[in-house]
């Protein structure tokens, strides 16, 4: 089997629902969605207008599901979708859309454009029109277990390092633990301090937790490529692991789309509600903080600001917790303009950071983040998504801005006193 246009079209027919039909019939071409999208605001190129990105979806809907559209197709007034067109749209659907969701928030007629981009990706991926970069990541996630190719031995090696460094045991496959912790490839490879931070925090809070040998990877490349079948495959591993270990809560790490994939799409992908809860690590920390289980000492004194990952805040509903946590360990926390729910995307989410051809565009779009930072001039930038961290670092480097980027969980953990101290 291989990808074909026919498969793509069939999949698009499957995903059509009343919301999409309602949205497509409501658009009045006001162009306000473009004003909310950083790919348009920083380039001035109208082709990046969000509603334009889903034009193939609109045409297919019209031709297949409306009487007038069908008639127009029959008499030749409306041309059917072609593979070449979808190939042409790849840049718009992937490179220039991070599924950040700002467009959906501003549309005056209520269109949820990011929802439609997500659905269009189903057809794009099934017809073979997803970008190579994400295809590679999907491939590695499915075959190896992680988009960056991290295998269990590598994880175990990191576990050992952390155990040695922090002196805290890292449990694996512990049945009956309250929390099952997941990691993203980025953390395993680039930010191993995250695991240590988890260990410290859990120890202080007195909570039982465990890693899962068959489901340590949270990143869902199937989500990013926009393919439910693959996304389901990846999510199922996590669900199987969590149910096998009978954990109460699965913790999604500092990764944006992993949270969205598991917390919001997971149950719908496997077709039944979960028997466990799913929380983002920041949510968990927030709960610990409110319950008095997060005791820290000392403060960061330099000027800090926070970048809200799109999938955590605007698309995930976790907005206040990170602020409360920042205030617990930072004396000089300042908000950048447009912080919180309306934050601008780092430019690399939704799989965009894996697309080499899209790098130039991402760099240009980064001017928006740059302007936010220029307004607040922080010493360091804190965030809670490993992908955001990478993308931010790349952007800052390009624009020669000397602002180190740190993860919130790590920063919190640094202020947890050593046990026995």
């Amino acid at each position: 089997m291989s990808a074909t246009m026919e498969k793509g079209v069939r999949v698009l027919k499957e995903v059509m629902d009343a919301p999409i039909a309602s949205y497509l019939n409501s658009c009045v071409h006001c162009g306000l969605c473009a004003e909310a999208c950083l790919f348009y605001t920083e380039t001035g190129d109208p082709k990046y207008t969000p509603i334009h990105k889903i034009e193939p979806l609109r045409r297919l809907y019209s031709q297949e599901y409306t009487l007038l559209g069908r008639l127009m197709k029959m008499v030749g007034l409306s041309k059917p979708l072609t593979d070449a067109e979808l190939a042409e749209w790849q840049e718009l659907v992937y490179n220039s859309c991070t599924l950040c969701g700002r467009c959906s928030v501003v549309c005056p007629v209520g269109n949820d454009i990011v929802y439609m981009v997500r659905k269009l990706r189903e057809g794009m991926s099934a017809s073979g029109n997803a970008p190579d970069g994400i295809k590679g990541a999907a491939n590695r996630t499915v075959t190896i277990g992680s988009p960056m190719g991290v295998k269990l031995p590598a994880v175990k090696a990191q576990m050992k390092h952390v155990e040695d460094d922090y002196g805290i045991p890292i449990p694996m496959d512990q049945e009956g633990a309250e929390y099952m912790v997941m990691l993203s490839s980025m953390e395993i490879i680039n930010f191993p301090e995250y695991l240590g931070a988890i260990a410290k925090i859990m120890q202080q809070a007195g909570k039982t937790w465990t890693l899962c040998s068959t489901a340590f990877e949270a990143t869902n490349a199937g989500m990013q490529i926009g393919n439910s079948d693959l996304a389901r495959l990846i999510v199922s591993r996590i669900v199987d692991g969590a149910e096998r270990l009978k954990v109460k809560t699965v913790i999604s790490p500092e990764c944006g789309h992993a949270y969205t994939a598991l917390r919001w799409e997971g149950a719908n992908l496997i077709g039944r509600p979960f028997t466990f809860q799913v929380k983002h690590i920041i949510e968990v920390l927030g709960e610990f903080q409110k319950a008095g289980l997060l005791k820290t000492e000392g403060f960061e004194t330099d000027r800090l600001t926070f970048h809200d990952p799109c999938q955590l805040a605007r698309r995930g509903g976790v907005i206040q917790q990170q602020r409360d946590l920042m205030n617990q360990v930072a004396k000089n926390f300042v908000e950048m303009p447009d912080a919180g729910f309306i934050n601008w995307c780092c430019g690399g989410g939704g799989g965009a950071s894996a697309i080499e051809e899209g790098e130039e565009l991402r760099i240009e779009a980064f001017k928006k983040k740059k302007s936010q930072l220029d307004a607040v001039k922080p010493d360091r930038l804190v965030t809670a998504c490993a992908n955001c961290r990478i993308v931010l670092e790349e952007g800052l480097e390009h624009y020669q801005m000397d602002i180190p980027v740190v993860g919130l969980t790590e920063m919190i953990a640094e202020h947890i006193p050593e046990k026995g101290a």
Partner: protein
Amino acid sequence: MQGPLIDTLARQGVTRRTFFKYCATLASLMALPPSAGRAMAEAMAAAPAAAKRPSVIWLPFQECTGCTESITRSHSPTIEGLIFDAISLDYQETLMAAAGHQAEEALHKAMKDNEGKYLLVVDGSVPLGLDGAYSCIAGKSNLEALKEVAKGAAAIVAMGSCAAFGGIPKAKPNPTNAVSVSDVIKDKPIINIPGCPPIPVVMTGVLAHFLTFGSLPEMDKLGRPKAFYGETIHDRCYRRPFYDQGKFAKTFDDEGARKGWCLFELGCKGPVTYNACATVKWNGGTSWPVESGHGCLGCSEPDFWDGGGFYKALSMPANPLKMASAAVAAGAVAGVAVSFANRAKKSAAKAGHETTTLADLEK
């Protein structure tokens, strides 16, 4: 033939001064300058000094004689004054003494003696059905008679809505295939004086204009003299302030009706009717329909009989909306049919779903 009209009037007790005042009033009614009033007076006063009084031939077609009745109510000049002193009414079936062959002879003599100079007045519509057999005089159809008499006329006055626009005979279903004068005659100057009937002084005013100036007054697109048909009833109606305030009589004897409120809701066609009723009024200025409590019928407008009903307000649809429920039902059926087709298509797509594996990401 008598002496100058001015002497006739003096004999009847109308002073010179009164006569000039009448001409001035007539001139101002037609929005003509004062000099026209003088000209009119001189022309009319001196009229008999000319070789003859101008010949007027009045042909009645499919009419109800209401226009003739109306012109006889003209108070100034009176019909007597007109026909005795100002014009030579050589043929008018209702008023003339002669009948039968004698009347026919008078008609043909007048046509011959005044060829090219007589004024032809027509009232009633012209039936075209059955080759015009629906209305004949002396064995000749109205259509034939009109064409024949119009040949030698200087101008034609289509008196009343029937002659001007077809009137009541033309109303649905128009069984006689009635048409207006201007539908038949295309090569003569025609002035339409619509109204069912027209206001008396409007009829005489136009005649006076023609007598004075030898030409027809300025006309609107429908051939009506602008002097009398230039404004709508609505724009001159004394009840207009009530319209603007939204005070409407809802029945003919409710409180609003008794208070003299606007009759729009009772079907008044004032907004779309051009006539002089609101200013000149009827019966020598006594009253007019709205003042008497009945909405304007729009009788000086073409096809006013088929205007959707005299008692249905202009804002109401002319026919009841009988398609509404049928349309809703049809729409629902169409929508449900499409929705079934949609569901079938979606299910088929789902059924044909081929689970994507990694290989399937490549074309």
